[in-house]
């Protein structure tokens, strides 16, 4: 019995030691070092325009204007909201995820069919078969900041019409915000939608107060 209590005491002290080491010291020291070496990334890679945070380069956004490129569908609407939506409870707080529709779920086909229709209406020069897969399928996180290069290029004609910018300018903007595969092998070619749209807004003179 005495032996048992001795073991018990050891177990309690061991638990407390590692609670402090792993649960407090480790994350706090790491925060200090990260803030020192990588301050931008450690604080969420935020983008500021005229001193105000307009988003993070790692998080996608919901763009409704027809002169901006669109992100992929999101189950959480990229955590964007208007004051009204917040007040009436349509926006329930910060989240992430997808609707988790199985491939056989009829809700999935309904959603995609509706999105195809909307997309073709907004981009009349595009034919149905040309729409890239990623543009109308929802990402896993609901916060995907990227679309494929094909998905960006296919929107340009409509964007050019609405923004008054030439196709050359827009193509340049897309190219500028495209990241290739790492070492030419790993990953996919992606376009960062928020950064591209910031460049579009800049070209249109929307950002100069």
């Amino acid at each position, binding site marked *: 019995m005495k032996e048992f209590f001795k*073991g018990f005491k050891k*177990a309690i*002290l*061991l*638990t407390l*030691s*590692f*609670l402090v*080491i*792993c649960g*407090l010291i*480790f994350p706090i020291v*790491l925060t200090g070092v*990260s*803030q020192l*070496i*990588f301050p931008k*990334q*450690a*604080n*969420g*890679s935020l983008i500021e325009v005229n001193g*105000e*945070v307009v988003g*993070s380069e*790692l*998080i996608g956004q919901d763009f409704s*204007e027809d002169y*901006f490129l669109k992100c*992929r569908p999101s189950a959480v609407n*990229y*955590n964007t*909201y208007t004051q009204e939506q917040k007040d009436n409870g349509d926006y329930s707080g*910060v989240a*992430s*995820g997808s609707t*988790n*529709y*199985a*491939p*056989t*779920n*009829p809700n*999935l086909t309904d959603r995609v069919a509706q999105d*195809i229709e909307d997309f073709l209406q907004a981009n009349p020069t595009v034919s149905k*078969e*040309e729409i*890239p*897969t990623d543009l109308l*399928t929802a990402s*896993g996180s609901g916060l*995907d*900041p*990227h679309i494929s290069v094909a998905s960006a290029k296919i929107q340009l004609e409509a964007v050019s019409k609405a923004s008054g910018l030439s196709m050359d300018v827009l193509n340049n903007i897309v190219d500028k915000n495209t990241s290739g595969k790492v070492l030419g*092998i*790993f*990953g*996919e070619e992606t376009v960062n939608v928020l950064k591209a*749209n910031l460049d579009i*807004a800049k070209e249109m003179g929307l950002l100069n107060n």
Partner: protein
Amino acid sequence: MLQIACTLFLYILLVIPVGNYLYKVATFKHTFMDRILDKVDNTIYRFCGIDIHQEMDWKKYAFSLVLVNALMLLIGFIILRIQALPIFNPNAIGGMESTLSFNTVISFMTNTNLQHYAGESGLSYFSQMTVIIFMMFTSAASGYAACIAFVRGLVGKDKTNMGNFFVDFTRIITRVLLPLSFIVSLLLVWQGVPQNFSGNIIAHTISGVYQDIAMGPVAALESIKHIGTNGGGFFGANSSVPFENPTIISNIIELYSMMILPGSCVIMFGKMVDERKGSQKKSIFGSEGRTIFIAMGILFLISLALCYVSEMAGNPSLQQIGLSQAMGNMEGKEMRFGISQSALFTTTTTSFTTGTVNNMHDTLTPMGGFVPLLNMMLNLVFGGKGVGLMNMIIYVILTVFICGLMIGRTPEYLGKKIGGKEMKLTALCIIIHPLLILAFSALAVSMQAGLQGISNPGFHGLTQVLYEFASSAANNGSGFEGLADNSVFWNVTTGIVMFLGRYLAIVIQLAIAGSLMKKQFVPETVGTLKTSTVTFTIALVLIIYIFAALTFFPALSLGPIAEHFVLWG
């Protein structure tokens, strides 16, 4: 394809030195870290009153493990219930409901990391750190300690001494988990994973709306989540969220983080066996380790190929309404990872029992989703925190027994005769896992409370249920996240399954090792069935598949296989 091959090739290069290091830590050999860490360890031993020379037999070892885990469960439960306190809680998160707290602490202490809450809205930073991160370290250390003790028992240098749990537990954290986590965390911050204590940020977007951007000490959790093969995300959508996994480089870092230690365990095992045998040959894996590594590798590659091909084929029902499927099944996947890195991640997370996801498994094609489900049902392809190796060795013992019967030889493994007692325990160990999955799935589909959680119609609904219990029993923790699982029924049942799946298996496995340990070595003769041959490896893989088919085929054919034929029929 090329990027998958390159990723795996680099892994093999990485796992060899780390396996060697783990072997040195397990056998108390000198390493370059000793000069500083001996001091740290000694301080901890002194503070806790741990006598490093105290020897433990298997019963004492298992008891210490369960005792320490039980205390951690208690502390974790209390913290979750009072997390509303304003300590590291800038977003003013409230206390957690009791069945959800019960589920959460068991989930993290058993290294499952099944999450019925969403981190960004359900946990304060204090809970994220002192419950989640803390348990990620300690549950992984418990698993590796059990594995090291198990291997010591099998190797059988001593008749009763399995080592000292407290010492093994401490050394694994200070010498392996903490240093690795620190380096990996910094690499992840470099790639863009946040690490701060500020509250969520409200951005004013150029579209004139607001956007909430979640913050927190994400990188600290992210590293140990993979290194400890834990898998629970800081955010609801886990490693698919850009803040948990921002780039292709962070994705590969996370992949390696979860693959490195389970693979190293096999190398450690091989080296420990060779050392006892007094083998002079310097082989990388050790001859017995090689058999196991190759068998696991074969199972892994078959799974990976099936998942990749299924996802590349896309979703025929979307093709039908006119959306091109040239890129594959992109629903639920991130653009920066595409099909290749998503399929690789899915196969890896369920082979190495991590449970982290970089795409939503519920949205995988039927056969793409079949792969993670099968991997968790097997629960021995590398496996997390050492437990996969232990499960695999249970199957090795079974294979030795069956092959021995077929060719009329006494079953022996590593120089020990396998007797009736060990075989009974092995059979028990093998049967618990399917029993938990199938019995609880049957319970769920026969009760209203269980059926209410199902969110997808048709055969997929059954797959959601099977997946949840397979993930719980295998202590994996990934989910078909559509399942509405934060209810009393799901919280309690999965809590029980996770608990039994973890501790029953560990205790039985330690008992087998403890029993083999006591036996005399039998000299190797021409009549001995060699376990380091190619033939034996193939027999092992076949027996694993045959057993899986015998137990799970009916359930699998009503779930993913039926759904596949609906979709493609």
